[in-house]
């Protein structure tokens, strides 16, 4: 009896980590943009959906992994272009204007997805087999393990990029102090555009990872975006590490609550996500890893 509960717990934790990895990558995308511009990009989820549709179209012409990589590249280029064309003109506008612009972008990209691909639900292939593998008497889904691997792999690559490359270092410098970065010769505008590109690619990754289980349609990422916000707020909007840890934590908590807390089930999952945002804002507004910043008003 106890062995059964343990194996169920282990399965739920692993599948929670899989959804958590997806929330975490989208949360990381939000944090990357927020850190350097103080703007919360509400269109992040719709951008992810749009690029997942692109992947879906590409997969009619090529096999999974080439389409996957090509989609990431397209998303990156699209993110850079979006920043240069749409965001740059309002670079010096108040943060609120840019946030409202991002909400406009959300509606626009959502409409664009429906217009191009229609609003009917499409099935999206998974890179990983859905059959389970047994590890010490516990059955894990290969799909879950694959999603965890891809998300954490992407995060690890990004961490190495920020730590060891010149451009990564310059992007961190711009996030900390744009004025000072200019004085050492960094092209601040391009670093912001690169940030949008990386965020868009991370979003595409999360979209492609979540699509096999929720099915592809224009509103696919709306709830994922909410969980990603919860994850980012939980970790601290300022902290990339926090976004990832927040995502994984949230994924596991939601899954366990859905399984073991009778009344949560699957209907109240979104409400739990909102409750997390609210609780963090009330108790610890800076999040688990964020810095408390005193701002003069």
């Amino acid at each position: 009896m106890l062995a059964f509960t343990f194996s169920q717990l282990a399965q739920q934790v692993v599948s929670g980590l899989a959804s958590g990895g997806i929330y975490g990558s989208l949360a990381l995308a939000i944090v990357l943009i927020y850190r350097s511009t103080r703007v919360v990009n509400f269109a992040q989820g719709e951008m992810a959906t749009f690029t997942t549709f692109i992947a879906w179209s590409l997969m009619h012409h090529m096999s999974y992994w080439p389409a996957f990589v090509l989609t990431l590249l397209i998303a990156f280029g699209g993110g850079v272009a979006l920043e240069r064309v749409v965001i740059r003109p309002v670079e010096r506008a108040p943060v609120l204007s840019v946030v409202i612009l991002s909400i406009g972008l959300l509606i626009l990209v959502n409409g664009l997805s429906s217009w191009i691909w229609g609003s009917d639900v499409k099935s999206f292939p998974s890179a990983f087999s859905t059959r389970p593998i047994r590890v010490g008497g516990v059955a894990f889904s290969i799909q879950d393990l694959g999603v965890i691997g891809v998300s954490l792999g992407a995060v690890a690559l990004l961490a190495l990029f920020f730590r060891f490359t010149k451009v990564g270092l310059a992007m961190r410098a711009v996030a900390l102090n744009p004025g000072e970065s200019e004085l050492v010769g960094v092209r601040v505008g391009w670093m912001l555009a690169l940030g949008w590109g990386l965020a868009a690619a991370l979003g595409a990754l999360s979209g492609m990872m979540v699509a096999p289980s929720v099915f592809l349609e224009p509103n696919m990422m709306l709830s994922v975006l909410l969980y990603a916000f919860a994850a980012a707020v939980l970790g601290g909007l300022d902290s990339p590490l926090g976004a990832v840890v927040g995502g994984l934590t949230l994924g596991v908590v939601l899954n366990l609550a859905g399984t073991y807390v009778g009344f949560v089930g699957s209907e109240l999952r979104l409400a739990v996500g909102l409750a997390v945002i609210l609780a963090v804002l009330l108790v610890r507004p800076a999040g688990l890893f964020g810095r408390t910043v005193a701002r003069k008003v």
Partner: protein
Amino acid sequence: MSLRVDEAEYVAVLGANGAGKTTTLRAVSGTVRRSGTIVFGGKRIGGKRPDAVARLGIAHVPEGRGTFGELSVWENLRLGAYPRRDRAAVRRDFDRVVGYFPWLARRRDQPAGTLSGGEQQMLALARALMARPRLLMLDEPSLGLAPIVVRELFEILGRLNLDEGLAILVVEQNANVALRASKRAYVLEVGRIALSGESSELRADESVRRSYLGY
């Protein structure tokens, strides 16, 4: 106002608070709106953005240290060399600045924000040197530093100017220190040049000292 710094020259800009010393430097580096003509190495740079000016070889160490406090000492130095592509030479320059400031190597992984004020000023200077600038501009480098640290700082500036032929434009309120170190000086008074000349002569002139430099 008209101001020039020759190649490998050491020039000081003096004056009271609000005389426009900082603004003068910022006009050169492009961090303030400017009019008139600014020429560097025969090229007009008056319309260039700060990052472009920096890449041309003008290093600006702003007032108040200007290091990235959350980045490590080493990362600050790497950022200084950001515009450069000559990797081997950059590596030699790491050794060169460590030669000037040996403690940098010992504390390379420490966040710059945890250094003392004097150390942060030295780090800001070291970071500027990593860019291999042709002109080094410093804004009030002595501000808030102990006299012994100020002496060390200006001693290093003197060596950079003499041994490496680095042109230096230093803005200072501490006229005594700046006039001893520099070859030529300008004295600013609310946005215009009140006086200029050889530093040694300005320093020797009793009336100049009393009316403009207040010591």
